[in-house]
């Protein structure tokens, strides 16, 4: 019995790569925005958005880990 066809494997790899890289990118972006805008001082205008972006990156990496564990 074949559990994974070559097509589904490719799709899975693409999804995994996307989750990981987008996660890392959003975390880096959040940190850059936070530092450049002095996020603590200007929390509601910029810091909050930086935290949200970085948090989204963390979520994507958690999804990546879930996919890895599930396979």
């Amino acid at each position, binding site marked *: 019995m074949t559990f994974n066809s070559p097509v589904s494997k490719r799709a899975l790899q693409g999804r995994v790569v996307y989750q990981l890289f987008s996660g890392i990118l959003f975390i880096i972006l959040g940190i850059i*925005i936070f530092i*450049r*805008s*002095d996020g603590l001082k*200007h929390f509601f*205008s*910029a810091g909050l958005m930086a935290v949200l972006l970085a948090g989204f990156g963390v979520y994507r990496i958690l999804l990546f880990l879930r996919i890895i564990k599930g396979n």
Partner: protein
Amino acid sequence: MWGYADVGADVYVALGLVVAAAQGAANLAFALAGLVYVMIGLAYTELASAYPVAGGGQFFTLRGLGDFWGFVAGSALLLDYTIDIALFAYASTGYVNFFFPSIAKISMSFGPFHGVNPIWALETLLVILFLVWINIRGIRQSSLLNEVLGAVDIITESTIIIMGFVFAWKPELLIHQWNTQFPSLHNFMYGSSLAIISYVGLESISQAAQETRRPATVIPRTSISLILTVFIFATAFSTLGLGVLDWQTLAQAEANPVAKLASVIPYIGVVAGPFAALLGATILLISSNSGVMSASRVTYSMSQMKLISPWFDAVNPKFRTPVRTIVFFSIIGILEAMLSALTPRVLDTLGNMYAFGASLGYFLVFISLIKLRFSDPYTPRPYMMPLNIKVKKGGETIKVPVLGFIGMLGVFLILFEVILTHTIGRIAGPVWVLGCLGYYIWFRRSQGLPVFKSIKHDWEKKTIEVLTSAEEYELLEIYKQTLKDRDKRLARPNKNDIQ
């Protein structure tokens, strides 16, 4: 990628409108509306996976609160779908006009109406007529096309955000605008209630739950990711926009703000601007089409539940599509589009009307979610909103949704903002709902059906049918066992044994 092509489009139209209202605090307006939206999204995820039927919010409300309120929610959502048709068709042609700036600049006066752009109105009319034609013929965009467009959109939006923040974003400009251009409370309330437009697609995609194979498995897995992605992109675009351009420039580019923003990013702007315009036009066209399709789905559901005449439910024998519904609600969409064309800011007028239907519909959905946790704890919920308090009632363990109550208050606040600040929506919205109620009372009386009470529905039988047709056999077994246990406990015969 489930539904992203439907949901991800909304920021293309909302960005300019919200920035024009909430000015230097537009990103906070998006973030606050987005927090409420996340809760709405979680509520829809729970309900759509538990009750995967056409009708979406209208069906959830009917199931929770009965026929009358189900009709009220249905009429509010129908208002929004007709506005969807008009708003997104207008926005789609707005992005097309990015390539023809001379059309966007046309401004004429007709009697008391000033700043009218008849060419833009004509383009919109043609787009809606095209959508009517493809829907009558039953031509659907393939799921592959939706997947590809959704993926291209995510990649494009991510590229604009990343390149924009790295190469063009000036934090000092954002902070300067925040400090010196902070809106009045009235404008901020208007902006944050308009921001709900960027989160409209959820209702459309919950409508499609019945057409999704194994919805109880697919919906929770994909929709939470979708909700967060849309929320982050809306917040990121507004933060980027205010750090790259002054809010007045973005507000002036109300017809194609994302393309305007993309075009000023160094290195990629020359290509990114036109590409974002092309993508925006395409994806907004799909959103407008969702309005036509969702109006058909809601009227089908309402007709099945005897809330409206079966006349709406009829399928054309030649095309096998609900031609009457498509034509009827598209004509309303065209009327809304043409009447809005007489105002100087067309998109703002349509958005102004949209928010009333959305906030009223979502408010009723939240009440239904809470009510259904008490009245129907037996239907399997593959996904439940987080943060629940367990309460024992009549031998049953009820999970009271804390986040459901918070979300309900959040949506109520948006509804309050709409009534306070949306000068057109607060009149047109209630007039529409009252007009529909007049029809409902006439129809139910003419059929000898109760107006304020509900027709008796066999929900248990219906749930078994839905789970069977959705191929959710595991949930079906759980449901039957739960009913059996309940009947045993209450010492009554189990009718579902007779299968």
